[in-house]
């Protein structure tokens, strides 16, 4: 790839006279040796899987594998049709769709990691609701996924995208930044505005810990995907209105790396701190694993080098 930072991404777009999505598509085709049309088709297949996951969680709600969660997407979707949401119908629909995909994930259904499974609801929530609202063709959204991927590529290589390495800021935070930047471009913003949206969004999730109850990608992951979709809409709106990220977005990514590196292990997906270790979190863990512990464990505490 010819860009390693968001600054360089903007420069490449402006010297080639292309959007972020177009630049990513042609760079990907070059990297893989595949044609642009095959590369596009792959991403279009992924968008199809995302739309199906949005639909499934709303129309066929299923409980998660643990039985702890499920059905919230459908609840919020029905509430939207009551006309009452404080967020307004559009943002609340993005929220419902993001919850939907995350619930499908928790039920071991099929999703696309964007950039991870723990954060798989945010981009589909923003994209599918915006497609309905603005009546965009699929093709437009697929190019938006390339834009989101370009932003995620820079974040992943300069910081991290896994909760085990950098906390929830690395997963949900990265997804919000990617969705915000991509939506800014989809709505006609410049690459520069899209990159400001990334920085604005990332600043809002710095420090967010990864503390899944019982180690499951459910509590609080699913609601954080819902919140994430709404935050992405807000960041894109700010950027389109001309709000700038005074701390350049590449520097914000550097802060995410600094904060994630300093984060204790108990707040990085080990379920040893945060919400997972509240009295209720511990009780849930006991209920889940207390009974069938022997099936799964026969060497806990052993110390061996890999």
């Amino acid at each position, binding site marked *: *790839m010819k860009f390693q930072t968001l600054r360089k991404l903007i420069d490449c777009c402006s010297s080639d006279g292309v959007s972020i999505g177009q630049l990513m598509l042609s760079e990907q085709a070059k990297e893989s040796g595949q044609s642009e049309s095959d590369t596009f088709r792959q991403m279009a297949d992924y968008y199809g899987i995302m739309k199906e996951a949005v639909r499934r969680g709303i129309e066929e709600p299923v409980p998660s594998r643990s039985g702890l969660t499920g059905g919230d997407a459908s609840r919020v979707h029905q509430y939207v049709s009551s006309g009452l949401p404080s967020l307004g119908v559009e943002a609340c629909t993005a929220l419902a769709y993001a919850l939907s995909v995350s619930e499908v994930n928790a039920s071991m259904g099929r999703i696309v990691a964007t950039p991870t*499974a723990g954060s798989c609801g945010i981009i589909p929530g923003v994209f599918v609701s915006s497609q309905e609202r603005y009546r965009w063709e699929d093709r437009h959204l697929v190019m938006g996924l390339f834009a989101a991927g*370009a932003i995620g590529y820079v974040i992943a290589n300069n910081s991290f*995208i896994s909760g085990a390495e950098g906390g929830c800021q690395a997963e949900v935070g990265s997804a919000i930044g990617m969705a915000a930047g991509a939506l800014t471009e989809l709505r006609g913003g410049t690459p520069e505005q899209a990159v400001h949206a990334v920085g604005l969004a990332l600043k809002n999730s710095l420090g967010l810990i990864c503390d899944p109850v019982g180690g499951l990608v459910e509590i609080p992951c699913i609601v954080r995907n819902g919140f994430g979709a709404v935050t992405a809409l807000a960041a894109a709106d700010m950027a389109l209105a001309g709000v700038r990220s005074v701390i350049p977005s590449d520097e914000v990514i550097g802060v995410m790396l600094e904060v994630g590196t300093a984060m204790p292990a108990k707040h990085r997906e080990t379920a040893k701190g945060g919400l997972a270790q509240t009295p209720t979190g511990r009780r849930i863990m006991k209920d889940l694993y207390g009974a069938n512990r022997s099936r799964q464990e026969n060497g806990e505490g052993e110390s061996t080098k890999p």
Partner: protein
Amino acid sequence: MRFKDVFSIIGPSMVGPSSSHTGGAVRIGRAARRIFGGLPARAEIMFYGSFAETYRGHGTDLAIAAGLLDYAADDMRIRDALAIADASGMKLAFKTGSNPAAHPNTARLTLRGDGREDIIVGSSIGGGNIELTAVNGFDVKFTMNYPTLLVFHGDRPGMLADMMNIVGGDGINIGYMDVDRKGRSGEALTVMETDEAVPGVLMERIRVLPDVRRVCLADLTAEEVKS
């Protein structure tokens, strides 16, 4: 660059709930199976770090079993993989250990069968991406994003040149290579990531080179999105 392309960020298509603990874990299991060269009779899996703490909740045991069964990350049979492994005659044992130096999501797989044993260590680094970090005690690093050739051989002058001549002579480009040896003139492992899979006829020419012990091709790219 740890992440090479757009499909390591948007993707893979997978069965939930966790790209590191489920999606990446399937790929670690599948890579190990390909290196081993078939379904092992027995597999012992040691989990470290976040894998050790949370594998039950994420179904990482199901995911590794599914990979050893050669399933893809979006195969709906993953949720039944432990039962299927049992029915296939593969004996699995899951253990947890601690190693602060390892990446937080690391698994060590010991596969046995046909009088052979392979020990493979892999880490799941986010978004379904993996890094294999050791094979049979050799410290080598590779990603399974490309067709990967593993050559176990004795360390001697000209060994690498002999292999390069065969691979490069046929127009196959090596994108990345890693070599580790147990000591001077000792046993060595060379790992090559190539832009296209090394065909069987070239593998055979490498296999018959002096001091080559074993050649295997681990290639997930035919079933996965090309990177």
